[in-house]
């Protein structure tokens, strides 16, 4: 328990405290004061250069080696097919062309190509193998399903659109697409009754037609009780369209934070493509129920390609800076630079990647801001993606405290090679040093314990030692991981680990899992921290050993009961992988209840970055969810899911480091409350949360039915000091400065976001 006296104070903390006098001090507090937005900002040359470089790399990339550039690939494949005399090769190319046509949104042409394939197979006297038959019919069904989705969910979008299980406004008004899909899927299941992919899609098609469950043939019905929530969390309506926040683009990231220190949470949203639609966008929360897009004024016009975003504060000016990550999934074609966007404090941003010495070209979608050497400056760890013949080791950049960084990956032994999809930081052994958790899509995870200086030199610039203790600690999977995070799900003062799995044969694995059947797909793992350097896999006992197939994820407290819940954005590039995002409510640290259906969280379209935050300052956390897939036409509007309120108490804490980094990433907080006559402790850590999606750095702590707040303890990692603050009231926000005895109350203005009527919804402001 980190709040108990340590038998041995953290060595790194003691050393860092001694050495701080040698380092440049953080910027003065006055710089973090709110400033009005700058309407006259001129895009800096450094930003223009980054935009130009990214565009050039995209132009020069080879579309045939990029499975996501369908429109470009079709022409090349048609030419290859025309030049081939080998019937088998031609068939293979024709099938790829049909798939790319669908992915490019050319549905009629894709159906025509499928007709030609059928004729081609007959002309050659072939009897298609079962897999080929099923592939062709599934492809045909997907063409029809996409037609239905396009004309209903996209062109006639409403807040029930594509919410699983589909009902109400989610039922298609224009039924031709799904009706045709249903017919094809029934034909497919007639041939292959055990095709779980077809069975899943049939149930979806019937939902869109309003025919589920009664008109689904009994042998292929997936019963509704399989999708039922274990708890009624109340409906969270999607208010993004009404607020102009429903960015309609591809997969991407989100940062929800207060960019200009006006007390309201703003949004930055990315899309991983490289076209105009994929513009990085920033929205200012006006504090009155409206938002204003300020992308151009912020100097970001033309900035594209970001799959994930992550905030920190590299220059300790108190304003969150942002990393834009690019190139993931593209393999050797993904050697794009990331961007470090300096927040100028007036709602403008400047690309300072080159100035900071950070121009590197490696495919990556995950980065962690953390102060590994305890010098008060946030360093950066990039979890890069290596593929066959293209080694891209992970990278650790030490912050020099002068606006520049130095690559120390090799000397610190963290230049791991793997297809790393996620990195998270935490302090699993409570020794005051932040550790790293790496999730590998193609291998076991790593838990890199921060052991401090590697040699006799204990200065922050000395080589540091990290040791992979995953196996010894009992972390042995999943072998195909994606998002990961540290969180203390049972409030015992020790950070636990979650790593979700990401490997399915096809969407049939999702069906199998819902039906309780065995599946070889990768399942999520939850590891309980035993407090002795080891972990226990509690996934089954806690109800999370499921095929979630998550890409994005984050955690928060939906009902302010003090227990951390989590939400996963799900899917993959295959258009047929129509699976719901999944929300899990933490039931007292003893079990996670699925609340996907009851809360309206089951977005069927591709889910990515997730952020929890109280965007209307009413005390409860809302959820921003980036929606949209990888392929060019798989765009879909993002969601802002408004919390209906649950009547519990809350506390907001904005921490400010003095010796610790200014935005206090890595600071640990224990809130002690009195509830039902007994003391209860709630443990939180300052940071953006899980690996894909970024929560605000201010802490938003649910207090349940607490009668009062006994005290707040803040552990500042650089000094190793635990600061105790008392006299705080429930349902209030405070600013806590490192070393200052009393917390300063912060007046946060709340506002009402109007919601369209949703059956069963009850919006409640505390």
């Amino acid at each position, binding site marked *: 328990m980190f709040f108990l006296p340590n038998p041995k104070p953290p060595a790194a903390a003691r050393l860092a405290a001694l050495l701080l006098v040698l380092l440049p001090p953080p910027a003065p507090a006055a710089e973090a004061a709110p400033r009005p937005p700058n309407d006259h900002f001129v895009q800096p040359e450094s930003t223009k250069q980054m935009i130009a470089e990214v565009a050039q790399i995209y132009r020069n990339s080879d579309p045939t080696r990029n499975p996501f550039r369908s429109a470009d690939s079709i022409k090349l494949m048609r030419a290859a097919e025309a030049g081939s005399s080998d019937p088998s090769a031609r068939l293979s190319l024709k099938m790829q062309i049909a798939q790319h046509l669908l992915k490019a949104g050319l549905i009629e042409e894709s159906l025509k190509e499928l007709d030609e394939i059928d004729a081609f197979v007959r002309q050659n006297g072939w009897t298609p*193998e079962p897999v080929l038959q099923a592939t062709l019919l599934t492809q045909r069904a997907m063409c029809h399903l996409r037609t239905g989705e396009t004309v209903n969910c996209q062109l006639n979008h409403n807040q029930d659109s594509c919410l699983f299980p589909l009902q109400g406004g989610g039922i298609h008004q224009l039924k031709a697409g799904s009706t045709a899909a249903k017919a094809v899927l029934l034909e497919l299941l007639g041939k*292959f009754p*055990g095709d779980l992919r077809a069975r899943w899609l049939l149930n979806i098609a019937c939902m869109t037609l309003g025919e589920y469950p009664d008109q689904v043939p009994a042998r292929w019905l997936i019963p509704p009780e399989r999708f039922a929530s274990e708890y009624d969390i109340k409906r969270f309506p999607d208010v993004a369209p009404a607020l102009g926040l429903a960015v309609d683009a591809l997969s991407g990231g989100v940062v929800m934070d207060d960019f200009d220190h006006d007390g309201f949470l703003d949004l930055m949203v990315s899309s991983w493509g490289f076209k105009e639609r994929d513009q990085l966008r920033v929205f200012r929360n006006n504090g009155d129920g409206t938002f204003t897009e300020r992308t151009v004024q912020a100097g970001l016009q033309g900035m594209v390609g970001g799959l994930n975003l992550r905030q920190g504060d590299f220059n300790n000016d108190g304003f969150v800076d942002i990393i834009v990550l690019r190139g993931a999934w593209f393999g050797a074609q993904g050697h794009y630079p990331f961007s470090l966007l300096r927040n100028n404090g007036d709602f403008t941003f400047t690309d300072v990647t080159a100035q900071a010495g950070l121009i590197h070209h490696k495919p990556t979608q995950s980065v962690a801001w953390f102060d590994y050497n305890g010098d008060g400056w946030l360093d950066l760890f990039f979890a890069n993606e290596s593929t066959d013949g293209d080694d891209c080791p992970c990278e650790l950049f030490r912050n020099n405290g002068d606006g520049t960084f130095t690559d120390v990956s090799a000397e610190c032994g963290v230049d791991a090679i793997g297809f790393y999809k996620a990195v998270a930081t935490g302090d699993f052994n409570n020794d005051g040093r932040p550790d790293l958790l790496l999730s590998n899509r193609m291998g076991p995870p790593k838990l890199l314990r921060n052991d401090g200086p590697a040699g006799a030199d204990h200065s922050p610039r000395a080589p540091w030692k990290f040791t992979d203790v995953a196996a010894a600690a009992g972390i042995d999977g999943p072998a195909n991981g994606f998002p990961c995070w540290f969180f203390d799900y049972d409030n015992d003062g020790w950070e636990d680990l979650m790593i979700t799995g990401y490997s399915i044969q096809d969407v049939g694995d999702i069906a*199998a899992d819902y039906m309780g059947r065995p*599946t070889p797909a990768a399942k999520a793992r939850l590891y309980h921290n035993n407090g002795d350097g080891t972990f226990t896999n509690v996934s089954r006992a806690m109800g999370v050993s499921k095929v979630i197939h998550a890409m994005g994820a984050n955690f928060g407290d939906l009902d302010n009961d003090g227990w951390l819940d989590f939400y996963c954005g799900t899917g993959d590039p295959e258009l047929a992988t129509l699976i719901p995002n999944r929300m899990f409510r933490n039931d007292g640290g003893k079990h996670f209840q699925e609340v996907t259906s009851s809360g309206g969280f089951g977005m069927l379209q591709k889910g990515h970055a997730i952020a929890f935050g109280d965007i209307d300052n009413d005390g409860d956390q809302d959820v921003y969810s980036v929606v949209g897939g990888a392929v060019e036409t798989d765009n879909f509007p993002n969601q802002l899911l408004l919390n209906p309120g649950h009547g519990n108490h809350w506390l907001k804490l904005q921490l400010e480091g003095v010796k610790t980094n200014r935005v206090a990433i890595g600071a640990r907080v224990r809130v002690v409350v009195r509830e039902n006559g007994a003391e209860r402790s709630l443990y939180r850590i300052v940071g953006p949360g899980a690996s894909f999606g970024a929560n605000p750095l201010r802490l938003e702590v649910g207090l349940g039915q607490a009668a009062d707040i006994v005290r707040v303890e803040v552990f500042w990692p650089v000094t190793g000091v635990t600061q105790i603050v008392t006299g705080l009231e429930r349902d209030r926000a405070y600013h806590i400065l490192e070393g200052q005895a009393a917390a300063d109350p912060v007046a946060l203005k709340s506002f009402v976001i109007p919601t369209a009527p949703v059956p069963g919804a009850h919006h409640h402001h505390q």
Partner: protein
Amino acid sequence: MKFRILPFLLLSAVAARGETPPSPPAPGYSREAYASLGSGFAQNIRLAELGWTEAQFEAFVDGLRATFHGHPNALSPEAARLQAEVGRRVEELVNGRHPSAFADPARVQAYMKQRAQEMKLKVSDTGLAYGLMVQNGVSRPGPEDKVIISFQAIAADGQTALPGLAADHLRLDVSDLLPGLAEAVQMMTPGGSAILIVPPELSFGDGDWPAGVERGSPIIFTLTLHEIVAAP
């Protein structure tokens, strides 16, 4: 059965908490007779074959003595585990069987983990280690389906064939398969095959084990799914 009870009775004495004072020696028997009784008792429980160290034996005698003097030691959880292990061991010795190398669940777990890593197999939630080798089909069988399968098994040593656990084109309900095979077959498609290491709880568990198969041991199977006969 009597042999099974003997060690239980003997070891239970260690745990006895009774207030009864030591009984007086029966009259008319020599000291040698008592010594002989002790040896017979020890032979009955195959004491010399248990592989104890001198120190362990001394501790055992201390326990006897303490009980004799009316101050028995409590049966701690550790002693209870020892009691069960010695019981199993004695039963195996008396019945002429070699002790199972997998009597200890931790040994099974260690074996499963090591072999799964060596053979690059995945491990499911239930503990089944599996590798799906060829999957060219479309349909997967459900728990209510019938299937036509072939399988062979070898012992945990990776070499000893288990001819009693083999079948060729056997038609049966998925629900009638050993749990480990039922789990595996539902992940397969017709024409597909798999290699499995089935832990004891997913094969014969606490039930009767076939002759020639070491009780409690993992079993390595190769399994082929030929056909699914869909449920009506």
